[in-house]
């Protein structure tokens, strides 16, 4: 099942050129770029592993692209996303995040309904490993 998290996730996968252009946009705004990866696309898994340090003081997207290349090499079958962190006072948070790498076959996510007291229903999502 195609995971849709972050920006552009309903579009076809971005090409490297498009990723470069997006990173250029982020750098133009003065945001720091971080590369993160995970093998667990559960929607509640918000803490992905960092790949290297977040990159402050970058001037050109190529620097981040090199890091992304290294991450793809190390984890070709993981989800990889690029985060742009805005350190401006008042924001100090990730302002943009988009997936740049997906496993060849994405795991499904199954929803389980549990009936509890009365007619209430609890929902549980679990990632279906192949």
């Amino acid at each position, binding site marked *: 099942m195609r995971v849709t998290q972050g920006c552009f996730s309903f579009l076809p996968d971005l090409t490297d050129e498009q990723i470069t252009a997006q990173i250029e946009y982020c750098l133009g705004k003065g945001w720091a770029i971080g590369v993160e990866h995970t093998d667990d696309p559960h929607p509640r898994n918000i803490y992905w592993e960092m790949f290297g340090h977040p990159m402050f003081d*970058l001037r050109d997207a*190529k620097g981040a692209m090199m890091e992304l290349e290294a991450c793809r090499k190390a984890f070709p079958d993981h989800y990889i996303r690029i985060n742009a962190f805005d350190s401006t006072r008042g924001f100090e948070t990730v302002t943009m995040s988009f997936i740049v790498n997906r496993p060849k076959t994405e795991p499904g996510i199954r929803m389980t309904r549990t009936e509890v007291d009365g007619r209430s229903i609890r929902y549980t999502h679990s990632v279906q490993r192949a």
Partner: protein
Amino acid sequence: MTDHPTVEAPQTAPQTIDLKAEYEASGVREVLEELDRELIGLAPVKQRIRETAALLLVDRARRSLGLSQETPTLHMSFTGNPGTGKTTVALKMAGLLHRLGYVRKGHLVSVTRDDLVGQYIGHTAPKTKEILKKAMGGVLFIDEAYYLYKPDNERDYGQEAIEILLQVMENNRDDLVVILAGYADRMDRFFQANPGFRSRVAHHIDFPDYEDGELLRIADSMLDGQGYGFSPEAREVMTRYIAIRRAQPHFANARSIRNALDRARLRQANRLFSRDAPVSAADLSTILPEDISVSRVFTGGLKTGRPEEDA
């Protein structure tokens, strides 16, 4: 700039390119003129940079006509004694390469061995890569590059930094230009020991020492930049100072002059402060002969030989 050596459009091409117009449009002229205006002396360096600019302009024209595809090797080495303007020229070079479109951003990242080489195993590679990432799209200026290579210590991590550098210099020629700088003789030895560098560095630019007259003009322009000026007698003392200082150890060209002027300003401030009379604007901005003449340079220099404490 009218006697530019390469003002000829390629004849065989289907279309022609007006190199003069390219030259004007690219903004290279401003950089070269700025270089001429702001840097005193350094005639051979300016000549080399003009030649390099011409080469790059022609190369760009060739590429736009489809005559060549390859990005030329742009890595450079700047050799010369301390204080001869290597960093300043590197800054201008970054601007030049940016205007010609050879680097995308045109910023200068200036580093030394400490910024590249780590302190323990596994520390060097991330550190070097971090710097390289920051330098992408611009110019990486490695000052005193020969310190990267320490032949007497085979466990030195410098070698690791060198290998990463070489790899990036080869694979990312479109993304970054590396300038290695240092003393001429030591850089020669460095290149001999690292043939990989020698073959990847296309442009070697040698920075000559300044003449006495040039140093005096540099002193003038430095003072002028800070809103000070020499009195005529002080200027004469400064001329003598330069001649004597040159022969003493740890002479670092323009940097020695800057330090001498800083100390002259210090003495001037003390002199004005210890005086009882009110001071005028002219007093506040004039260096008098006694501000320079009490320097130890005139009494044979500093015996302990501590560097840069010698005026």
